[in-house]
């Protein structure tokens, strides 16, 4: 029997948990009392969801494709086959023909190595991960405007705020412990929720701004308009920023009376919201409802503007808090598993790349690489010939799934490294069995920039190996001279090369509850709150957000708007949660939420099977008639491969960040079975 302190593998909240293990089996899970983020609580996924690690479906042996079938192979053979496949692509079509995909579910160490593999071994910046599909716009806009793209406050600041402004985040379902911590604080505090759906927090809100999908900028601008017009601006903060005059002129045209036509929100509610955020110490929270739009980057800018001109940044209980989805999406972004930066947010023209070249002993690419959201289109066109995918399942998670599957089929060579067989691994030439969260030591970075230790407490099944080991061996098989004896060696390379992580050493993370980056030296305590006293950028930059109506808006042919998202009981493409009995029991099958009004129009009853069609695909799902969605809007969770919401999502993207427009898709009801 042993008791191990670690961090939950699901969302970005990073809840501390203690796991009791006996005979390689998880016996009990306990929420950690002393952890500042979850303070003795867990959501159902924390309590129940971690038992997927012992599931018999786990990949236990490397597989290689022989005669069209995946057959078991030794590690030596699998690594040689993988190295050969990538080597061939490299010789025939050059480094730009290879795409490497990292994973926000894997450790900082694995992610650091996978981007190093792309850049130093393959020689390409074609490396990305699912942050492209979630917070790429956030990083882009916040980095430009404030000098840092991450949450400004620690989670525990929720207790210090006087008001909350939640937009585009179904917090109690996607970041349950943060959502619940807001609920816990509601007595005597104000809650504003902006969401087309009547989510749990909206039902508890003092002000629910039920705007139309895709009208976030008009809504946020109209609130900012009232702040300016009614003289509620925080002049001290305006003095600490630049661009206010330009913003003020832009805001003039967004009076709430006019924007009501676009947003559907009555001016009275806009005024109430404006007064609250101007007068109270307010924490802003946002997530995919802001970012997954064609104007994603501009949407984030509109949130930042409002927070800055009301003085709600860099204070205890006030700040801008993009909620990062995966347990380590923050870390994977910090460590540059993205094509546009090097680890630690070094842009492609940053002289710091020279330092990477020196340490890694090779010259490095400085051209922008291919983004995940364009990789499959490029593969379809024959520009990308080979892929190495670690811990992601793009066949279900990425937009236009039909095209993704065709592209995967067309690849000359595909390596998939994962813990379970997935819809994506069906297309692989080599499948590498990886250790899970329970079997791999390392660090992860939670949504509030808290870098924490996760611990191996059971042995990987069969011959599965830790990600850092697999990537290292593959690099070595391809001729690189990598020498790592464990994840601690990788972290010390991160300490050396990434200024934000400089003082966050393996030894320091052993006890306690992690360290918030930036942490410039080993004697620095870390930085729980950003922009205190001074913006990281110096002065904050206010940007008048440019709005355009969504291109996939409803029309006569496709009269409904589909918006996609997650549910509390499942995680992403369900590779983990469908193997946990109670989670699968709660939501066993895909569904579409339809408003009672639309249900009446189309003759849909609760439980009817309906066909949902867009210009890109069609799915069949069971209807849930519910007033959570307003008339004219339907909601489909994207978890289910058998009715992949993403088969309906088109190619519309935010031009600035490449994020797909998952939240606004024109659809129609193509048929109803009773």
């Amino acid at each position, binding site marked *: *029997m042993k008791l191990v302190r670690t961090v939950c593998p699901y969302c970005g909240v990073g809840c501390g948990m203690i796991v009791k293990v006996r005979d390689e089996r998880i016996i*009990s899970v306990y*929420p950690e009392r002393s952890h500042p983020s979850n303070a003795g609580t867990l959501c159902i996924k924390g*309590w129940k969801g971690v038992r997927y690690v012992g599931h*018999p479906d786990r990949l236990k042996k490397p597989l290689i494709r022989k005669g069209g079938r995946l057959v078991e192979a030794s590690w030596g053979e699998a690594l040689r086959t993988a190295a050969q496949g990538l080597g061939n692509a490299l010789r025939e079509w050059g480094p730009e023909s290879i795409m490497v995909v990292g994973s926000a579910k894997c450790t900082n160490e694995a992610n650091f190595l996978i981007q190093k593999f792309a850049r130093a071994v393959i020689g390409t910046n074609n490396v990305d991960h699912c942050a492209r599909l979630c917070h790429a716009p956030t990083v882009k806009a916040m980095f430009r405007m404030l000098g840092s793209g991450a949450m400004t406050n620690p989670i525990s600041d929720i207790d210090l705020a006087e008001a909350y402004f939640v937009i585009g985040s179904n917090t109690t379902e996607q970041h349950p412990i943060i959502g619940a911590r807001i609920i816990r604080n509601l007595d005597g505090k104000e809650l504003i929720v902006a969401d087309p759906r009547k989510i749990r927090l909206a039902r*508890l809100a003092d002000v629910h701004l039920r705007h139309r999908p895709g009208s976030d900028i008009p809504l946020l601008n109209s609130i900012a308009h009232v702040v300016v017009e009614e003289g509620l601006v925080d002049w001290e903060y305006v003095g600490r920023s630049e661009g206010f005059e330009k913003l003020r002129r832009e805001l003039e045209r967004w009076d709430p009376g006019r924007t009501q036509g676009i947003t559907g929100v009555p001016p009275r509610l806009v005024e109430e919201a404006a007064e609250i955020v101007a007068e109270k110490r307010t924490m802003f929270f946002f997530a995919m409802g802001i970012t997954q739009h064609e104007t994603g980057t501009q949407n984030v800018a509109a949130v930042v503007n409002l927070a800055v001109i009301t003085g709600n940044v860099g204070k205890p209980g006030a700040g801008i808090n993009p909620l990062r989805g995966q347990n380590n999406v923050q870390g994977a972004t910090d460590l540059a598993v993205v094509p546009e930066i090097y680890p630690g947010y070094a842009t492609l023209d940053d002289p710091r790349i020279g330092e990477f070249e020196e340490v890694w002993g090779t010259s490095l690419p400085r051209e922008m690489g291919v983004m995940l959201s364009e990789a499959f289109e490029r593969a379809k066109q024959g520009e990308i010939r080979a892929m190495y995918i670690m811990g992601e399942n793009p066949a279900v998670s990425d937009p236009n799934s039909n095209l993704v599957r065709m592209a995967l089929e067309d690849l000359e060579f595909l390596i998939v490294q994962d813990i379970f067989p997935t819809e994506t691994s069906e297309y692989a030439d080599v499948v590498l069995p990886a250790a899970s969260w329970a079997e791999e030591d390392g660090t992860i970075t939670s949504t509030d920039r808290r870098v924490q230790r996760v611990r191996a407490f059971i042995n990987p099944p069969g011959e599965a190996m830790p990600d850092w080991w697999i990537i290292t061996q593959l690099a070595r098989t391809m001729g690189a001279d990598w020498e790592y004896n464990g994840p601690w060696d990788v972290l010390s390379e991160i300490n050396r090369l990434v200024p934000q992580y400089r003082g966050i050493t393996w030894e320091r993370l052993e006890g306690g509850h992690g360290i918030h980056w930036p942490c410039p030296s080993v004697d620095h305590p870390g930085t729980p709150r950003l922009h205190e006293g001074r913006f990281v950028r110096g002065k904050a930059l206010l940007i008048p957000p440019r709005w355009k109506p969504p291109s996939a808006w409803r029309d006569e042919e496709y009269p409904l708007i589909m918006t996609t998202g997650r549910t509390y009981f499942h995680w992403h493409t369900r590779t983990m949660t469908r193997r946990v009995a109670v989670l699968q029991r*709660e939501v066993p099958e895909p569904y579409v939420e339809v408003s009672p009004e639309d249900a009446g129009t189309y003759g849909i009853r609760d439980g009817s099977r309906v066909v949902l069609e867009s210009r890109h695909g069609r799915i069949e799902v069971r209807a849930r008639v519910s007033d959570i969605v307003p008339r004219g809007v339907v909601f489909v969770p994207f978890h289910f491969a058998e009715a992949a919401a993403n088969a309906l999502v088109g190619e519309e993207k935010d031009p600035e960040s490449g994020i797909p427009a998952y939240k606004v898709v024109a659809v129609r009801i193509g048929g109803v079975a009773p």
Partner: protein
Amino acid sequence: MIVGGRELLDGLVKVLMERWTVVAPREVEGNVVLAPLEDAGEIVLDRPLNSPKEYLLPQEEILFEYRDGGFKAPEPRGYAILGIRPCEFRALLMLKSVMGEDPLFLSRWNSSFFAVQACTEPCPSGFCGDLGGPEFSGIDPYRPLGAPDLQYYTLDGRVFVDALTERGKEVLGALRDLGEGATEEELERLRMRISEVWEDMKRVRVVGIEERARWDHPAYSYFAERCIQCGACNFECPSCFCFDIRDEDEGAWVRVREWDSCLLEGFSKMALGANPRKREEDRMRQRILHKFKYFKETTGFYMCTGCGRCLEACPSGIDLREVISWLWRE
């Protein structure tokens, strides 16, 4: 009763370790967890973060497996469980009144030894005042259902150990050398402290609530709205017994039992999707009325002993004491 220093407590653990795996509060990197001890000195006096329920009804357990054409059932052994509080022991008695015929539960119960730590300090979240109070006395209302083997108190750096069963007396006998008899003055101080704590713990009136708890009370929807369905109140509750079973292919077929939660929709969902408790408020009502009305009416006991673990574990801060106060108000 005998009185001694800290070595009396360590001595008790040592004696029990000869015959049992001893489960007691111990420190795990800044947290106190009720878990098996490796060394007698590891026991601490703080209240652990987990309830003792899992040592009789585990979070997840294999009921039996089917292998090579035959069934095989485990034969679990109980533990010596120390440092649980009177409220938790009473809750285990509730648990036993329901699970007492389950062979695995029974086998654990019959081979367990219980040493209760009486509360000489009030706890922040409990409300045992109306439900038995801070010690398991000889006239405890739950006495007819059973008693812990030992009860110990700590006061001013002294440990007082008392035996409540024959088996307890046996163990206490082995500890004679480590302590002495309590003086009348010491006992008086202890009685005073216990009654002070008891007074403090009378935080919400419970007795009689079954008469007042209405079927259509607005409290259910108010609190259901705030519930994120994590299940923690059920999981942490030492008297909540509801479980789910399923069959799994782990090479051999195994039947697994795991803790379930009545606040989840799937808990009461039937074949073809019919659900008598489809709305969140229906499930919240079930939880409350089961504990404070139905169970009381059928057994004479509330299925709540005021330990306060549910409100400590609730992410949304739903406070059962507040729920009960609402029910008293019309």
